[in-house]
Structure formats: structure tokens, C-alpha cells
């Protein structure tokens, strides 16, 4: 089938967006941005300097007070305008994501929708910002009020897997509540956010309210260390999340740091086999397994293991790989050669540790895309809880098939993991589902749902080494993260 058209073949040298202006970085360090499907270089991203980051922080701080004085209803109106513009650019945003990240067009369209949903929630900011009051709350004739106030400049350090959505878990809430913001997009996938920020500019947000600084750890460290930055949001791997959490906290910041995951999907003997398999395919192979909510361990309980495995292999073989701009493709490549090597190393390691590779995606080739970083669906049988592949985050389309006697065994296994991002159960039993939901120590729980992706008005949760902080992205948690309560006690003489 014909490919959808690329928005541009090459996006050139990306600029930073600071104080309402697009500024070319003075750095001499630039990274190529690669299309992971074709291997083509589609742009260059600057590794901006600490001074450039500081200039963005100063601009955001300068813009803060007049933005904070803008009534919430007026701030909300800008988000309505932004929503309309994002709808107009919906298809372009999705196609750029496919180009730079490698996901399929359906995944990219879905992700764009998710970003827009956060804008829609932020547009309702007046109601979300309400504080509370109590007449005679302090004593007779003395009233007490709690008011939500913005704090100043916030920043986000973003990952490569969701270039449109993840910055939108944070900045619309931060800005709608009256703060100003700096995004550091992933240097692997910065074009989407660059494009979306041009739309933000078009919507009429005042200069300095939202800023983009491209780069690497020099930008992140400057954000974490600068006294005028009040808080940091992060999504990425657990080691970096720990560093961000610790380093930001040492510098007196609020932090929400989402780390890695190792998600188990548990299939009970009473699961509806066809529907379960189809739903799990999206979880294990969607975004080529590069999502923190992706299934990784497939835990079959009792006698469903053999029929499940048979059906799973049959269905996995039908997954069509290719360029995500072909609408009939089910799975694209992983994001880079480095990412591919890491996944292949895990598969090799699993084989050495005794895993049986029933479906091997290591040598996958897609005609016409020989330079693409493709890994085919891979299914490893005989995985046991002590094997590395059962414990580490793989971030690729690799299924570790495990057999257990009971749901209790499955829950014990889940609890041994240092991660606590997500877990799902497939069952027709309300009792099993209820027990699972009640007992499992993970932030996102699926009942017959393999990708437990909270909608914009709910927090994106996470426990243990999957999240550092207390307030999550999205929803009311985001409002709380980006505001503080000011308590006022009033007495009139």
C-alpha cells in the first residue's frame, strides 16, 4: 500500500524557543536525528549550553508574574484556542512522530489524541483551581481560606517513546495553573515538540510562558540546579529517574520522576482466549514494546498455558512490520541501533539462561527498509522468575512466557520485582479480578486491559522503582504538583 506523505523530508537545524523567539543555539555540539525506519537523517538537534538554559529560565521567570496575574478563565481560553489548532495539525503531528520515532500511524494518531486530551482538561482550569473556605473557620468572626497559588518556573525532561504526549502530561497543567514552563524534549525525537510549540506560539501564549531548550544532561542539570526553577517532571529509565529525584530534591525542587517498568500480564484459566490474545498483542508489540506500560512477562496460570501459547504464537506471526506511514503496518522498528542491540542482548542472554526461543525476531528484515532498527515479535518460553529476562526492563517486542500454578504465585512474583508500574489480569471471575486489584502493589492495574494508560483526568500512577515522588502527572495530581496552598485567616475589626 502507498505510504502516507512525510510532512517534510528534512527539518534542518532545530532551534530553541525562548521568550517567544526561535533562537539558534551557539553550541558546536549537534546530533543527527535519524528516522529509525529508513535510516535517513531528518534534522539536527543542538546540545544547548548551560548559559542558554539559564537564559530560558530567566525569560520564564520574567514572564511569570504577569502570567500569574492573568485570570484563570483567560488562561483557559488560550488552551481552547490551542486545542482547535492542534486538531487542525493533528495529522501532521502524527506523521512527524512516525518519521522520527518509528511508531505506526495509528499509534501516533492515538498519542496525538492523548496530548490534546490534556489540553482539553487544562482548558477547564477555573474549576480545577478552586480552593476552599470555612466561615468562622478559625474562631467566631474569623474566616479561613485555602487558596491554590502557582509557584513560578517548572521544567520537564522528556523521553523518546512518546514525543507528543508526555510533555503534555505536564506543561498544560503547569501553565494553566499560572506557572511558566521549560521543556527539554528527548534529543532523539525533538521534532514533534518543536512542531507543536509552533502551534502553541500561534495560539497566542505570551512570550516566556512556554519555552523549549533542546539538549542533553547539561540542560537537565541546569534546570535541576537553578534556584528559580521550582519543580521538575521527568519520565525515563529508573536509574535516571533516581538521579533526577535525588539531585532535584537536593536543590530544593518539587519532583515527579517516572522510572522504568517490568509489567506482568496474568492470564487466568477462565480468560476469554481470543479476546485476551488480541488485547495482549497491543500491549506487547504496540510501539515495538517501547512503552512503560508494555507487557513484558506473560504469566499463564494453570491449564490455559498450552492453548494460550499456541494461539499467541499464531497471532504474533501475523504482526506486520514496516514503515508506520503504511497504515496497514502493526509494528515499527525500535528507536535506534543502540536500543536494538540492547534488546537483542537480552534475547541472547535469555537463550543462554535456558529460555526456549519459540519465535525469534532477532534477524527480522523488512524489505525496502534494510537500515531500519527492526526486531520481530519474539516469544521466549520456559522463562523462570530468576532469569534476567524476567526481571529487567527490556523495552522491545519480547514476550517472556511463564507458567505458574496459581494467582497467588503470580502476585508473589510481581511483588518480587523492584518495579511497580503496571500489572494486568485476564479473567471472567469478579473475585479474581477484585483480589488482583486489591493486592497487587503496582500503580496501574488492568482488568482485561493490557495497556493501563490513564486518561488525562486521572493520574498516571506508578509504585516502587517506577515512580519517585508523590504527585503524578495528569489530572488533579498535576494541579496539586504545580500549585501550593496558601492559607488565609481573615478578621475584620
Amino acid at each position: 500500500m502507498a505510504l502516507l506523505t512525510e510532512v517534510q523530508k528534512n527539518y534542518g537545524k532545530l532551534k530553541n524557543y525562548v521568550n517567544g523567539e526561535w533562537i539558534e543555539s551557539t553550541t558546536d555540539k549537534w546530533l543527527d536525528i535519524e528516522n529509525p525506519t529508513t535510516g535517513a537523517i531528518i534534522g539536527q538537534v543542538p546540545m544547548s549550553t548551560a548559559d542558554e538554559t539559564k537564559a530560558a529560565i530567566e525569560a520564564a521567570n520574567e514572564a511569570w508574574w504577569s502570567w500569574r496575574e492573568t485570570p484563570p478563565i483567560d488562561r483557559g481560553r488560550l488552551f481552547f484556542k490551542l486545542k482547535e489548532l492542534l486538531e487542525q495539525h493533528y495529522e501532521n503531528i502524527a506523521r512527524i512522530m512516525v518519521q522520527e520515532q518509528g511508531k505506526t500511524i495509528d499509534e501516533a494518531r492515538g498519542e496525538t489524541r492523548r496530548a490534546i486530551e490534556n489540553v482539553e482538561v487544562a482548558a477547564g482550569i477555573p474549576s480545577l483551581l478552586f480552593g476552599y473556605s470555612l466561615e468562622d473557620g478559625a474562631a467566631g468572626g474569623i474566616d479561613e481560606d485555602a487558596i491554590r497559588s502557582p509557584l513560578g518556573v517548572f521544567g520537564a525532561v522528556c523521553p523518546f517513546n512518546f514525543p507528543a504526549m508526555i510533555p503534555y502530561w505536564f506543561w498544560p497543567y503547569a501553565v494553566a495553573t499560572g506557572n511558566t514552563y521549560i521543556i527539554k524534549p528527548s534529543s532523539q525525537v525533538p521534532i514533534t515538540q518543536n512542531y507543536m510549540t509552533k502551534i502553541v506560539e500561534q495560539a497566542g501564549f505570551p512570550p516566556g510562558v512556554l519555552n523549549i531548550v533542546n539538549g542533553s544532561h547539561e540542560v537537565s542539570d541546569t534546570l535541576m540546579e537553578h534556584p528559580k526553577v521550582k519543580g521538575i517532571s521527568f519520565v525515563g529509565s529508573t536509574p535516571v529517574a533516581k538521579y533526577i529525584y535525588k539531585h532535584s530534591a537536593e536543590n530544593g525542587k518539587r519532583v515527579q520522576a517516572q522510572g522504568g517498568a517490568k509489567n506482568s500480564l496474568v492470564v487466568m484459566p477462565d480468560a476469554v482466549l481470543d479476546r485476551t490474545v488480541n488485547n495482549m498483542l497491543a500491549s506487547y508489540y504496540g510501539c515495538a514494546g517501547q512503552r512503560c506500560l508494555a507487557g513484558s512477562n506473560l504469566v499463564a496460570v494453570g491449564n490455559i498455558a498450552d492453548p494460550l501459547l499456541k494461539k499467541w504464537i499464531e497471532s504474533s506471526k501475523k504482526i506486520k512490520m514496516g514503515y508506520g506511514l503504511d497504515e496497514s503496518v502493526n509494528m515499527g522498528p525500535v528507536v535506534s541501533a543502540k536500543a536494538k542491540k540492547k534488546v537483542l542482548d537480552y534475547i541472547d542472554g535469555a537463550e543462554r539462561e535456558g529460555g526456549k526461543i519459540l519465535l525469534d525476531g532477532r534477524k527480522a528484515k523488512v524489505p525496502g527498509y534494510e537500515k531500519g532498527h527492526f526486531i520481530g515479535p519474539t516469544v521466549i518460553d520456559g522463562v523462570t522468575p530468576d532469569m534476567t529476562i524476567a526481571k529487567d526492563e527490556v523495552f522491545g517486542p519480547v514476550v517472556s512466557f511463564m507458567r505458574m500454578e496459581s494467582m497467588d504465585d503470580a502476585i508473589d512474583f510481581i511483588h518480587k520485582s523492584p518495579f511497580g508500574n503496571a500489572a494486568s489480569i485476564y479473567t471472567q471471575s469478579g473475585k479474581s479480578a477484585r483480589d488482583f486489584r486489591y493486592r497487587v502493589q503496582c500503580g496501574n492495574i488492568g482488568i482485561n486491559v493490557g495497556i493501563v494508560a490513564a486518561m488525562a483526568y486521572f493520574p498516571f500512577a506508578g509504585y516502587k522503582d517506577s515512580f519517585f515522588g508523590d504527585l503524578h502527572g495528569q489530572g488533579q495530581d498535576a494541579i496539586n504538583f504545580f500549585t501550593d496552598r496558601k492559607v488565609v485567616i481573615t478578621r475584620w475589626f
Partner: protein
Amino acid sequence: MVECEFPECTTFGSVVRFALELEKGAAGVYEELAKAVPSAALFKELAAAHKKRGGMLENMRQQKLNEMILEPIQDMEREKYIIDTKVPKVSDAKQAAKVVMKIEETSSKFYTDASKSAKSIMAEAYRFMDKMSKDNLAYKAKLETL
């Protein structure tokens, strides 16, 4: 003749693309028939209806897509739903109607099957596809009156 490119139906996006091609093809055939049989206003009316449905499909794809439940589609055979967009010479409305009734039938079958696939993915898409299928049959019924 309208050139259509019918993809394999393996994803939500490709099913919608298939549907868009169906609508484009059907609209094109109706337009040609409207020229051939100017006395039959129904062909013009249904050409417009199919164009409108294309817009509705695009809107549904943009507004209803939920990436959380983007399951692969593995039960729709592309070949079953391909329509012939070549318009033969027709001399009257009855003959012309026969050409498009076949298209409406095939389209209805496509939307019925697509709605079944969509049911496990997203309820809104199911309802939308189901309505499209019913509309195809309503168009066919109108054509039978010519």
C-alpha cells in the same frame, strides 16, 4: 473511473483507509452515472452522501481513536470487500442502479464486518460502522425503486 487503492485490513487505520477508498470509489461511480442518466437525481444525491461519509470517517478516526486499545485486526479479508469502480455504458436509470446496488451491498458487508472487529476495540467505532452499513442498505433500497 475512480482509481482506488484498497489496503490490507490489519489495523484500525487501514480499515478506515479502506472505508475512505470505498466512499471515494462509490462517490465517483455515482457522479459518472449522474452524468449518464441526468434525469435520475438520486445518483447525484448519493454521490454527495458518499462524499459526506468520507468526511465523517476522517472525523471519527481523529476523535475516537484510543491508543490504549489499538488491537491488531486479523479477521478481515481485503478481497471480500473490493468494489469495481469501472462504470459500464448504461442506457437508463434501472441499469445504472444495478451497477451501484452491488457497490452498496459490498460496502454494507464491509461495514458490518468492520463493526464486528471494531466492537472489541472501541464501542464508538462499532456504532459508527454499524450505522454506515445500515445506510448502505437504505441507499440500496432507494435504488431498487428506480
